[in-house]
């Protein structure tokens, strides 16, 4: 890979602070939503970001499109530092990074016709014949261009999400950040949208950051996956590697918790290792490794020292003191000795 990455994210931190208005004397509360996240994204690549509610994945997404300004760290798009640019400075670059939100009902203006919502994005891209371009975009996302005359509430959820995608495309972006784009949709409609996103990526050479809680969907769309827990990246790997050999116990627990639609054939209904508990509050994250209170492999060192994100080879990053792959490797060595 000689080409420079499209997006470079370095040590991005985002803290929300809130002062209690009822008790101003009390100290401010800081929520560590995103804590020291780094990754890069190549052109035409899809990076999936997964994690449970409250892990900071949506905050990260909003930082990337600069709806939020990170507390610290750097975000570079095509080498240009956009981390602290003002709204005015950002304007010419806005078209490059677009976002598709989870709920198109609340992200499309209910009083604007679909044609006008998509048209606004098209104008940003500086297109002359707006109407023709809007019709073309609606057609590209598989909608009848006549739908442009309707209001968002007059179309179905799947169609609304296609409108959301058409609007993002209208600005002629290089990168689209998709925040839970399919989780509100029925499975058959979800599959149609996923295939559409796939086609658009091929046709326009788009890069995606696909944020979702559904690991099965993320695996289907992404070449690389980043797993977040309480604001931290705990594992980043190629999709196939992540599923074949998860290093972090949290990743392994997430994968194990996905219900698989297949016959049970007398197998017990109970899943093997249900991860106990829920993620703790990001207001006061646990010491050391943030996962240690729920981790079946935790030892004293996990509560004391925060594990760094390190590479196990071939770009498979993990942050764990007792990663699963080392144990598997040790077992293989042992088994090898026995055979000899």
């Amino acid at each position: 890979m000689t080409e420079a990455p499209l997006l470079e994210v370095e040590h991005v931190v985002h803290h929300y602070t809130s002062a209690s208005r009822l008790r101003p004397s009390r100290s401010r509360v800081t929520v560590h939503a995103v804590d020291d996240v780094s990754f890069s994204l190549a052109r035409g690549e899809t990076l999936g970001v997964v994690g449970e509610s409250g892990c900071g994945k949506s905050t990260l997404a909003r930082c990337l499109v600069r709806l939020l300004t990170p507390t610290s760290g750097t975000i570079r798009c095509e080498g240009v530092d956009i981390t602290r640019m003002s709204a005015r400075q950002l304007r010419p670059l806005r078209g490059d990074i677009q976002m598709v939100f989870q709920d198109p009902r609340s992200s499309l203006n209910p009083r604007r016709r679909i044609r006008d919502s998509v048209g606004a994005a098209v104008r940003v891209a500086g297109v002359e014949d707006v109407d023709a371009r809007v019709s073309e975009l609606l057609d590209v996302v598989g909608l009848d261009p006549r739908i442009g005359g309707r209001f968002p509430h007059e179309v179905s959820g799947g169609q609304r999400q296609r409108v959301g995608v058409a609007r993002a495309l209208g600005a002629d972006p290089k990168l689209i950040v998709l925040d839970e784009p399919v989780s509100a949709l029925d499975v058959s409609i979800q599959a149609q949208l996923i295939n559409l996103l796939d086609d658009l990526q091929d046709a326009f050479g788009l890069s995606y950051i696909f944020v979702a809680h559904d690991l099965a969907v993320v695996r289907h769309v992404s070449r690389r996956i980043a797993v977040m827990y309480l604001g931290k990246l705990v594992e980043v790997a190629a999709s196939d590697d992540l599923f074949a050999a998860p290093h972090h116990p949290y990743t392994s627990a997430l994968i194990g918790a996905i219900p698989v639609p297949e016959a049970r054939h007398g197998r017990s209904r109970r899943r093997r290792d249900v991860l106990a508990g829920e993620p703790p509050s990001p207001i006061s994250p646990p010491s050391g490794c943030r996962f240690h209170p729920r981790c079946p492999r935790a030892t004293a060192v996990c509560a004391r020292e925060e594990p760094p994100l390190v590479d196990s080879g071939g770009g498979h990053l993990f942050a764990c003191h007792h990663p699963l792959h080392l144990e598997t490797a040790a077992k293989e060595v042992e088994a090898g000795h026995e055979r000899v």
Partner: protein
Amino acid sequence: MSALLNVEDLRVAFVNEKDSYRAVDGLSFDVNPGEIVAMVGESGSGKSVTAMTILGLTRGPGVGISGRILFDGLDLVTAGEAVLQRLRGAEIAIVFQDPLAALNPVQRIGTQIIEQIRAHERISQKAARARAVECLERVGIPSAHERLSAYPHEFSGGMRQRVMIAMALSCSPRLLIADEPTTGLDVTVQAQILAELDDLRAEMGLGVLLVTHDLGVVADIADRVVVMYAGRAVERAPLDAVFDDPQHPYTWGLLGSIPRTDTPRLERLATIPGQPPLPSELPKGCTFAPRCPHRFARCAEAPLLESRLADADHSDRCWLSPEDKRVLRNTGTGIGLLGELAATQ
């Protein structure tokens, strides 16, 4: 053995000045004690309307309900409001998808659980309180005694759903209706809640009607499955048969649409073309035909839900022969709905 719940030819229609919408159309199924029956389908398929109708919650002007809902031999369609009031919450309990909407936000959860217990049983406040603690402990809420005085917003989503389940169990019901109980929860929490539901089923001999859109959840805990499409059951089968030998093209479409984590990644997901019909514009004949690549002349006539296989418990509404289905549903990598839609017939 007679079933705990026996729904027969249930029809629910919403009527206004101009039209009549058939939300549920000729639905039959039953639930036995200690059994989890899953009702699967997408939005608008009639699954939630069915759940609400069993509890008598859809009654009202402009709603036409016919057929029978036998609960332990008692017909809930014709039962008086007083009878339903006695059964609801006591014999038949429900857990809704969104506990934040189902719980009263300005009442402590202890008050809400105690209120429910005392509405059905003549026991003291103290005894009801003890029962409430017991129920919360039963569903794995730590320090249950203190948590009684917490408000709904003080719980996480998963814990709130446990509170709902605890409340549902407080009067030892025999039938539990769970309407999308884990939708919106994280997978790890979902696995915990499903395990909890299954424990209760096993220990209390509870019959469960699980309404869900997620075939993965179904595979995890259900015994039998009813697949709904546009108000009708298009397939009804024991669990394994739905995944190993699905008979209805809509079921194939659902199975093919789900990204899998246990098989190699597919280039493309097999989808179902088009969109579900509006209840006001239901097609004549087979309601799935307009979206079905395998439709043929006979689909203009509505097929009945009947067994077309050796297994009498496995019924479907599709005219294709079981031999043809075996070939047509095979995508090479699994089961799915393949092929282009033929031009409108």
